[in-house]
């Protein structure tokens, strides 16, 4: 279980990126964090990944505090961030700690099979398409067998078809080892397609505006009425959170757009 309590992040220049965020994610649950820009989604994920230190509050994985990158937490960045000087297999092996060479080969191959890239092991990252590179990054995050998989808008740079295929890949992988998944997204369809729970965030300072549980069966088709209804609910919650944010100084700027 991932337990986040009263998490606050204040940057050195005084900006409060995240204020008092509490969130408990059950094992094997998929949570989508959604919200406009500047509402602290990425900040939240970086704190949970242990890349940054929180100003206040705590993050615990099965009771153990997370203060720096943790073996039980795998992270996929917004960009693939593969190391260009390693081939695909060596890039995946970066996610593995110190293990014997034979076991390493086997686990790398298995991780690549999971993302459907087993015959690309000897390729350079530059020879892969964007979607393939992101799949390598997912394999790298999965190879250590993490309890929690963090995804930071991992599919935002991809076209709609590739994104749809990666959603399927992700769900297939999830159903095999069933890690806890926390993913940041700005795409309502993506959130509704994948998540058990959608957490809507609002900006200035970043905090949780709303939580929507989605108890829909998988696989989910976008056309089904239940999924459509869920999309509308999430959109409405998102709208409310953005309107609340705009009541500040930005409200006066809105009429100026009508010229």
């Amino acid at each position: 279980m991932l337990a986040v309590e009263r998490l606050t992040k204040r940057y050195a220049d005084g900006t409060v990126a995240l204020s008092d965020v509490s969130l408990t994610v059950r094992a094997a649950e998929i949570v989508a964090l959604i919200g406009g820009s500047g509402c602290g989604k990425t900040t939240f994920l970086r704190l949970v990944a242990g890349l940054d230190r929180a100003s206040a509050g705590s993050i615990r994985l099965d009771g153990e505090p997370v203060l720096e990158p943790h073996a039980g937490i795998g992270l996929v960045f917004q960009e693939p961030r593969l190391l260009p000087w390693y081939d695909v297999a060596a890039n995946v092996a970066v996610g593995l700690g110190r293990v014997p060479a034979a076991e390493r080969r086997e686990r790398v191959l298995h991780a690549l099979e999971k993302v459907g890239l087993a015959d690309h092991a000897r390729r350079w990252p530059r020879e892969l398409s964007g979607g393939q590179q992101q799949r390598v990054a997912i394999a790298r995050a999965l190879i250590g067998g993490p309890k929690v998989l963090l995804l930071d808008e991992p599919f935002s740079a991809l076209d709609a078809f590739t994104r749809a295929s990666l959603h399927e890949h992700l769900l297939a992988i999830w159903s095999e080892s069933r890690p806890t998944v926390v993913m940041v997204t700005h795409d309502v369809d993506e959130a509704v397609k994948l998540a058990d729970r959608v957490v809507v965030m609002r900006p200035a300072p970043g905090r949780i505006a709303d939580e929507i549980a989605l108890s829909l069966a998988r696989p989910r088709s976008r056309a089904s009425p239940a999924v459509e209804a869920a999309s509308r609910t999430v959109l409405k919650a998102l709208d409310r959170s953005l309107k609340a944010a705009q009541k500040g100084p930005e409200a006066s700027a809105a009429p100026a757009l009508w010229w």
Partner: protein
Amino acid sequence: MSDAGLSVAAAEDSHPAAPTGQGARGGRARWARPLAGLLLPVGLALGWELAVRFGLAQGRLVPPPSRIWETFLRLADTGELGLHIGVTLWRVLVGFGAGAVAGILFGALSGASPVSRRLLDPTLQALRAIPSIAWVPLFILWFGIFEASKVTLIAVGVFFPIYLGVGGAILSVDRKLVEVGRAYRLSGFALVRRILLPAILPEAVTALRSGLGLGFMFVVAAEFMGASEGLGYLLVDGQQLGKPDQIVAAIIAFALAGKLCDTVLVLLTRPLLAWQDVRRERL
């Protein structure tokens, strides 16, 4: 997995590797282009040769190619050329080695640690502003007129481009890739070996190559200031005895030795840089 997902995944898998591009061009064009570059120098040489042969020019101060070639062969035959090249190469290699080691070391310090950067860099930059040849009198006073002062001068000349290149390369390492290393809990040493070192290697190799080039520049200066052996000595000797053919032969030997060393350096480092995704093939 849904049908749509499967078919899309298949389409994505067939995405081709980067095309090689140059393969389509015909074989003749590949040879014709470098040959076009030879037209001007070969034409000039041939013209001069003919002009001297037919008595249109004296060719005393500017010897025709045939005489240069003769001198070159004669020097090679007597073993003189080999001796001078050997001595010059040895000086360059020792000076380059010392300068490169120091440059890499200080470059790494300045690049990696803000404290040592603040302490070291201003002084080194100030020293860099001094034309290296200006050190010659001091080095002769300190180290005598033999090898030590020459090698020191070369090392100083080699040091600065390598220091700048390595330090700059470390400072410009992609923060995002370093973060990957942190996210996957690479220890300090593993982080250096698997991320920092490969990341700075391309720039470091370029720095080493420009350092080596400067090494050859400074070996001439060093050998001008008094030497009884070396290609620089051949140059001075040719000037004092009025033998322009010997000077040009020595210059050609310099060009060959410099190109040879650079090629060796490139070949040695090529396997380390095979991953690079660059437009041009080589420089």
